[in-house]
């Protein structure tokens, strides 16, 4: 069974600062996903990473994948309050999906 670990679990950061969320997975996977979830809401897809070295950027968020280290990162640049949410990574192997427990991000003005 594939295990996915995220850290940190909780992150409080000031507006304008940079930070990185880490996602480690335990076995070979086909693709790595990042999602955002606002309180009481559904999940919004942010990125899908398919190959080693893949990097995707959208606004202040950038995701990367290192399949050899079984590590994905979500980098936040110059955080703003609107980025406050819970961020999940998920690793997929075939049709099976395994989610991390999430990183709850709070951006403080």
């Amino acid at each position, binding site marked *: *069974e594939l295990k*996915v670990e995220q850290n940190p679990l909780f992150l409080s950061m000031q507006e304008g600062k940079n930070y990185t969320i880490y996602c480690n997975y335990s076995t070979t996977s086909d*693709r790595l*996903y990042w999602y955002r979830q606002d309180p009481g*809401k*559904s*999940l*919004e*897809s942010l990125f*899908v990473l*398919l190959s080693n070295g893949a990097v995707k950027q959208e606004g202040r968020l950038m995701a990367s994948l290192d399949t050899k280290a079984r590590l994905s990162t979500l980098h936040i640049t110059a955080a703003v309050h609107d980025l406050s949410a819970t961020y*999940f990574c*998920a690793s*997929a192997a075939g*049709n*099976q*999906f*395994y*989610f*991390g*427990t*999430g990183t709850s991000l709070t951006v403080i003005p």
Partner: protein
Amino acid sequence: NAGVTQTPKFRILKIGQSMTLQCTQDMNHNYMYWYRQDPGMGLKLIYYSVGAGITDKGEVPNGYNVSRSTTEDFPLRLELAAPSQTSVYFCASSQRGRRSYEQYFGPGTRLTVT
């Protein structure tokens, strides 16, 4: 397009009751999924389907059943509700080969079993 829709939004069940959670997508996606999310946790895959008539188990299938008679619909059945099934249930769909396997999620069904 409405995307992925789920009904009901909320439901309270008594122990031992049965119910069906409905999921419909209008994007002509082949792949559909059911997840559950317990408080403060990530999602766990219950069942998935790769097309009409084809379903398979995910990580936590016990206590649930699914069927997929059409491309659009993927209902989830709870036969004998137990308190451990109290959770938020999300349905999702995707179309491999397009949009890089991106998954689209429904709004969720919040289920309480007492």
